[in-house]
C-alpha cells in the first residue's frame, strides 16, 4: 500500500491525546515561567541582590556597577563598593555608550568614590575629585552638594555656599546649607 487509509488511525494521536498534549506543553511553559519569576522575586529582596543580578546579566554596563557599589557601601563593605565604582568608571568610556551615558557614568562613579574618601579622612583627595567633576559637569547636583558639604566640614562653609545653592536649584531634594 503506497498511501494510508484515512480510517487507519493507529499511528496518529486522537483528539483527546492532542488536547492533553497541548495542555501539558502549556503547563510546562507556565511552570518554567513561574520558576523564572520566583528567581526575579528573590532578586528584588534587597539592593545587593537586585544589582548583583543586574551585573551578572549585563557585565558591560556601568550603571549597574554604580548602584552595586552603593549597595555594598550601605552594607558596610567598602572594598567591594570601591571596586564596583572603579569598574563602572572603567566601563564608562566605551564608545558604544551615548555621550550622556558616558558623562553620567563617569561623574557618578567619581562622586561616589570622592564621598567615601571624604568620609574616611581623605578630604584633600576627595576635594580634588569633586572639583574636577563640577568643573566638567556643573549640572550634576550630587557633586555640587558633596563639594559644598566637604567645604563645610573643613571649615570653609562660605566657599561651599555657591555649590550648595546650585545643587538645590538643580535638585529640589537638596537644601541650601546655612553657614554659621
Amino acid at each position, binding site marked *: 500500500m503506497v498511501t494510508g487509509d*484515512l*480510517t487507519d*488511525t493507529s499511528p*496518529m*494521536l*486522537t*483528539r483527546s*491525546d*492532542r*488536547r492533553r*498534549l*497541548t*495542555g501539558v506543553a*502549556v503547563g510546562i511553559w*507556565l511552570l518554567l*515561567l*513561574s520558576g*523564572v*519569576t*520566583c*528567581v*526575579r*522575586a*528573590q*532578586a*528584588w*529582596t*534587597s*539592593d545587593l541582590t*537586585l*544589582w548583583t*543580578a*543586574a551585573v551578572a*546579566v*549585563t557585565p*558591560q*554596563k556601568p*550603571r*549597574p556597577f554604580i*548602584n552595586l557599589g552603593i549597595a555594598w557601601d550601605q552594607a558596610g563593605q567598602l572594598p567591594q563598593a570601591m571596586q564596583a565604582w572603579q569598574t563602572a568608571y572603567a566601563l564608562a568610556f566605551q564608545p*558604544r*555608550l*551615548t*555621550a*550622556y*551615558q558616558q558623562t553620567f557614568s563617569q561623574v557618578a562613579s567619581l562622586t561616589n568614590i570622592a564621598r567615601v574618601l571624604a568620609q574616611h579622612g581623605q578630604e584633600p583627595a576627595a576635594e580634588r575629585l569633586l572639583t574636577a567633576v563640577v568643573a566638567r559637569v556643573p549640572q550634576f547636583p550630587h557633586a555640587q552638594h558633596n563639594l559644598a558639604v566637604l567645604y563645610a566640614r573643613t571649615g570653609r562653609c562660605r566657599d561651599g555656599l555657591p555649590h550648595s545653592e546650585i545643587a538645590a536649584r538643580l535638585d529640589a*531634594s537638596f537644601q541650601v546649607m546655612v553657614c554659621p
Partner: protein
Amino acid sequence: MTPKLWLIGLVLLTLAIYWPLRQAGFVYEDSVYLEPAQRPLGWAQLLAPRGLTLLSFRAQWLADGGVPRAAHALNLFLHLLCGLLVYAVSARLLTPPAALLASALFFVHPLQSETVAYLAGGRAELIAAVGILGVVWAFTGPVVTGRQVIVGILAAVAAVGGKELGVLALPLVALHAIWFRAWRGSWRLAGGLVMGAGVFLGLLVGVFHARILGNLYLTMTERGALAYAALQSLALWQYLGLAIWPVGLSVDHDVELASRGLTLVTLALTVSLASAVVWYRRRWPVVTFGGAWLLLALLPRFVVRQAEYLNEHQIYVALIGVWLALAANVQALSQWLQARAPEALCDSSSPSA
C-alpha cells in the same frame, strides 16, 4: 476542574512564586518615592494624577509606620486582583481554557514581576491597571447595566488616580466596540462613553500641564522624535522576545547596543505590526485586538520623550494585550490540531446522516 478552581490554583501558585518578597525591604528608589508619605497630603497632591497612589502610600504609612512587608503584600494583592480581572475580560473574547491561559500568563510571567516587587514604580501601575481593567470589563459586556456603569465610573477614578496612563481606559473601550462591533445602541454605554470622552479630554489637558509642560526630565533626552520612537521600538521588540523566552531580565533597562540601522528596522517592524493589526482585524479579531491594546498602551512612551527607555513596570498594562494575543493563538493552534485528529478527519469524510 471548573475555571473557578483553576483560578484559585493560579492565585495560590502566584502567592508561592512571590513568597521571597516577604523578606524584601525597600529597594532601589522605593525610599525616595515613599518619603512624601511621611507627611500629610494636600488636596493638590490628591487631585493630581497619581493622587490615589500617594494616598495608598500615606494610608499605609499611617497604618503600620512604613513596614516593607505590608507594602509588598498590598502590591501582590493588587496584582492578584488584576489577574482575576484579566480573566473576566478575556472570558468575553476567548474559550474558558484560553481565557485561563491569558490570566495565567499575567499572573506568573516574569515580565510582570518588577511591577509587583518594586513599590516605587509598581504601585501606580497596579492601581491604574485595576482601574483600566475595571472600566474595560464594565463597558464591554453583552449588556451594560446601571450597576456596571457605576463600577466603570469608580474604576475610571482608580485608573486615573493611579497613574496618568489611566486615561487609556476609554480608548480601550472604544477600541473594543469598534473591533467586535459591540455597539448595540445602549444608552448607558453611549452615556458612559460621552461622559468618559469629556473627562478624558479634561484629564488629558490636566496631565499635559501637570506632567509634561515644564517637566525638566523630558528635556534630558538627546534624541529627536523619530530616533526616540525607533529606540523605544527596539526596547519593545526586546520585551516581546522576553515574553516568549524570558532569559536575561534585569532592573537596568537602558539600551546601549543600539545602532541607528537596527533601531530603524525595529521601528519599521512596529509600523508593520500596527498595519497588520488593522488589516487582519476581521480575520483574527482577538489576536489583533491584543496587538492594538499593546500599541495603544505604549503610544505615550513613543511620543513623550523621557530620558529613560521603556522599562518592565511601564509595560505592565500593555502586556495584557500580548497575553490575550498569545492565548488566542494557542486556542487556534489547539483547535487546528484537534481538527486534524483522525476522528475529525473521519467525521469530515463521511457525510452525516
